[in-house]
């Protein structure tokens, strides 16, 4: 059979499969965390060493979070892109379901020097979608966060290697620590399994290659005392099934980038990648 014939059969099969199916995009409701003035170019409005804390607030408005010593302010923009309604009939059965809302979460953190001038602007959008339930987890994070501790990024679908197993959970990167919440079989659903203060972190980088299969795809956090913690991530930010380790380079790289903004005292920050 010719290639054209095969492609026709595939197209026909595709059409037959879709017969009776309907997919409708449902726009998302405006999120209470929506900030239209927080976008990917917001950092261009400020000049390091020149713009002041006043300039930032007078341009962007009240921040979502402020450091206790006002050494940084953080803005977030949560956009709900909506979801899909999918329905279909086949044989004698009709069914329909809705996908979860697609949420985009942008975080802009502006760091200031002691004189109150802009030192640098960290601006990134979470690379993967996450579902609104993450906010429940966010509440759990707030319950254990120290006063004034600022959240830089959260990684759902993370895994932390402990005692020869990969514990599934969610990893939070704050300006003071790495926090890992493990998913448990019984309540509470998420348990704080690790709080690693930035003062205890010596470096965050790719795991050395060649030591174990897949080692080049997870990150290694070396502690100042010589111990280390490994973190891996699923391709999407869904929860991991227990004992399942799925490694994704892109999200691991994102974690290493974000961890590079941690500021161990007396050490230079890891430069951001271009």
């Amino acid at each position, binding site marked *: 059979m010719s290639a054209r014939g095969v492609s026709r059969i595939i197209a026909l099969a595709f059409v037959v499969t879709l017969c009776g199916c309907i997919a409708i995009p449902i726009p998302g409701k405006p999120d*209470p965390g929506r900030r239209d*003035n927080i976008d990917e170019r917001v950092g261009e409005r400020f000049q390091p060493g020149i713009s002041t804390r006043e300039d930032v607030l007078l341009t962007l408005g009240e921040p979502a979070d402020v450091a206790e010593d006002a050494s940084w302010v953080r803005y977030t923009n949560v956009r709900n892109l909506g979801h899909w309604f999918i329905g279909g009939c086949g044989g004698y059965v009709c069914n329909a379901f809705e996908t979860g809302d697609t949420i985009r979460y942008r975080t802009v953190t502006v760091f200031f020097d002691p004189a*109150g001038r802009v030192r640098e602007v960290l601006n990134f959008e979470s690379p993967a979608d996450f579902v609104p339930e993450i906010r429940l987890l966010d509440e759990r994070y707030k319950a254990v966060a120290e006063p004034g501790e600022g959240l830089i990024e959260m990684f759902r679908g993370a895994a932390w290697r402990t005692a020869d197993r990969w514990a599934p959970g969610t990893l939070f990167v704050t300006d003071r620590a790495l926090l890992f919440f493990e998913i448990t079989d019984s309540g509470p659903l998420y348990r704080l399994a690790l709080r690693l203060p930035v003062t205890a972190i010596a470096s965050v980088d790719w795991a050395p290659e060649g030591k174990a299969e897949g080692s080049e795809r997870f990150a290694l956090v070396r502690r100042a005392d010589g111990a280390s913690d490994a973190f891996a991530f699923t391709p999407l930010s869904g929860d991991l099934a227990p004992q399942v380790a799925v490694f994704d380079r892109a999200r691991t790289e994102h974690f290493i980038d974000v961890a590079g903004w941690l500021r161990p005292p007396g050490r230079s920050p890891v430069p951001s990648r271009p």
Partner: protein
Amino acid sequence: MRLRALPASRSLLAGAALLWALLLVGCVTPATATATAPSLGPVVALDFIQDGVTTIEECEPRLGPPSKKIPGAAGGQMLTFWLEQEAGEMHVFVDPRSLERARYSLVLSFDARGVLTRHALVKVWGS
């Protein structure tokens, strides 16, 4: 009691109706959350705000407690308030539940003496 036989067409119709009803079993109308919309805060006039004139002591009686107090330059202080515009009037929010409706962030920057040096009304969302 004697049952009367239905004509074939009516039987077919009744059967179709029954089938339709069966198909609808399991369909539900999703309940929509009917949360009470947060009420607007009191109307505020912003014309008293003038750089170099307005003092920090004047603000709280007119605008209520600020949403945030942030250290400013050279011992100064910045106050922020959330506002919403409706029917041409500005309302200030004091109830945190109302924040999701606030589209404007008012930022007031005072010097160390408590005199307003700069201010801005920033629209944070909405066309």
